[in-house]
């Protein structure tokens, strides 16, 4: 880390700091401009989307666009579907991952190390490689066009990296905790639920947030498994809406403001959750990155 102490003269220090803040601000502006432009467009009336020079602050501000965008396609259904999938898969993923992690972190049994190597191995297989046979499997089970392919695997440790994260976290908790509870007559299940889980809150929060983000943003799996429009998630619905503008959907009317409104609505939940739980996002990424 370059600290102020390692820089010599005051003049150099000041110019260095100016350079630093300038670079940061320019970069931040580059990252933020697409958002700003999307929000701005989403609030314009159809006539002022394409004016030259570009209109940064919409005038007039048309909030009605958001209502209209939500009515283009049944977005409330897509929201419901996405929430059902995200919540159920999230519960399964977080809870079952911790249970499995507990088994790996605290018990010795024949085949454990082999299973752990398999776990690490499955982390290396890209999901795309298995999407075809998984589709065939779920098709055979009659699960295509239901939420089951997106939810059930989460209850069976389908996110090995989360199990790995949980195991690493549980290993940092002292075993004396388990032993003390055991002396008091607690069995393995009680120890897990009453002693370790309350202490594992940072892991649970990280896992819940990564799970939420992953399911909310997922595109290829719902695209493959959900073909019926009433089953669409927000991601699929959003793509469907964007397709309307290219075709004859709205009889040639400009739709970009509505598409931007729909996009902003779709990204808002993730952004809000990110802003509130930021530290858990970053912690999870860093834990997985350094130790993986």
């Amino acid at each position: 880390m370059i600290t102020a102490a390692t820089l010599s003269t005051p003049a150099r220090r000041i110019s260095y700091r100016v350079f630093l803040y300038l670079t940061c601000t320019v970069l931040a502006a580059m990252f933020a401009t697409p958002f700003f432009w999307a929000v701005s467009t989403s609030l314009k009336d159809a006539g002022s989307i394409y004016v030259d020079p570009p209109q940064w602050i919409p005038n007039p501000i048309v909030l009605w666009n958001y209502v209209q965008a939500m009515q283009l396609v049944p977005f409330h259904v897509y929201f419901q579907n996405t929430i059902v999938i995200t919540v159920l898969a999230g519960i399964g993923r977080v809870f079952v991952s911790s249970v499995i992690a507990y088994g790996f972190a605290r018990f010795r049994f024949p085949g454990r190390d082999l299973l752990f190597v398999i776990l690490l191995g499955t982390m290396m297989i890209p999901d795309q490689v298995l999407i075809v046979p998984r589709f065939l499997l779920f098709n055979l089970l009659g699960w295509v066009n239901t939420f089951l392919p997106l939810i059930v695997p989460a209850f069976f440790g389908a996110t090995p990296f989360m199990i790995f994260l949980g195991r690493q976290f549980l290993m940092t908790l002292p075993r004396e905790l388990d032993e003390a509870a055991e002396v008091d007559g607690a069995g393995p299940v009680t120890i897990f639920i009453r002693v370790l889980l309350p202490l594992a809150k940072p892991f649970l929060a990280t896992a819940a947030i990564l799970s939420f983000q992953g399911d909310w943003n997922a595109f290829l799996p719902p695209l493959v498994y959900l073909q019926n429009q009433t089953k669409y998630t927000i991601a699929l619905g959003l793509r469907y809406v964007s397709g309307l503008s290219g075709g004859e959907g709205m009889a040639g009317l400009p739709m970009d403001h509505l598409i931007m409104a729909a996009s902003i609505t779709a990204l808002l939940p993730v952004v809000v959750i990110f802003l509130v739980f930021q530290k858990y996002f970053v912690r999870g990424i860093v834990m997985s990155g350094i130790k993986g």
Partner: protein
Amino acid sequence: MRLYTKRKLSGFLFVAPFVFGFLAFTLVPILYSIFISLSKYTMLRPPRFAGLVNYETALFGDPLFWKSLANTAYYTVLSVPLGLIGSLVCALLLNQSIKARNVYRTLFYLPAITPIVATTLIWTFLLRSDFGLINVLLGIIGIQGPKWLGSIAWAKPSLVLISLWGVGGPTAMIFLAGLQGIDSELYEAAHIDGAGALQRFWIITLPMLSPTILFNSIIAVIQSFQAFDVAFIATEGGPANATLFYVLHLYRNAFEYFEVGYGAALAWLLFMAIFFLTLMQLRLSKRWVYYTSA
């Protein structure tokens, strides 16, 4: 003794969901997919064993296989190095003692958590050749912007540009953690020896960070070989197959033309390509990665 066996059993029971999930959703699909990749299978009729026909078709009878592989390689060669440099720059900036560092970190990170469909639609709008903001801004400084996603030459660079919007995300955070792990005494020692800021970056930061660079590079190559969403949504592989990425080709064969057997073979070839590239990077890493405690 009985207690010991009981503990073994309960340990296994806790892990059991993973065992079942692995068998049902990974191992069985792997085996089945090997089988169908060796079969003629179009979903209308049951699979018939056909040997290596699908693999031969891919390598010798399908020009789009090579086209999609070349597109993916082109995208990887551009997006991975640029993305790593971008992430590293973000991490270096966030590693300085600046006020409101959290605000900058949040702004840098936000694009990476945006749902990919929203990202794609926002950028499609920004990159429109006629009224898109980017071309309008370029026009102000007197540059006639290209047709971006609509042009054969610019379509892939456009997708690279979109991918670069996310450089402030996870990769940058992993770099940042790596930077924070470097012993500050090294910098102080180098400073006393008279090394300038740039020199300190070359002789301390880069070597000490090289394991993190390797990790991020491996992950980035794997991800870029799986690129699908943006090309599927924004360009549908066009114009003239300029953005037909490998996974898009796979998806079309398996789920649009119902050539399931061929799709499975393409998936295995993808796996081999990724495996080979990862192995290569690990091999080459011996020449440039520096481990302090190896």
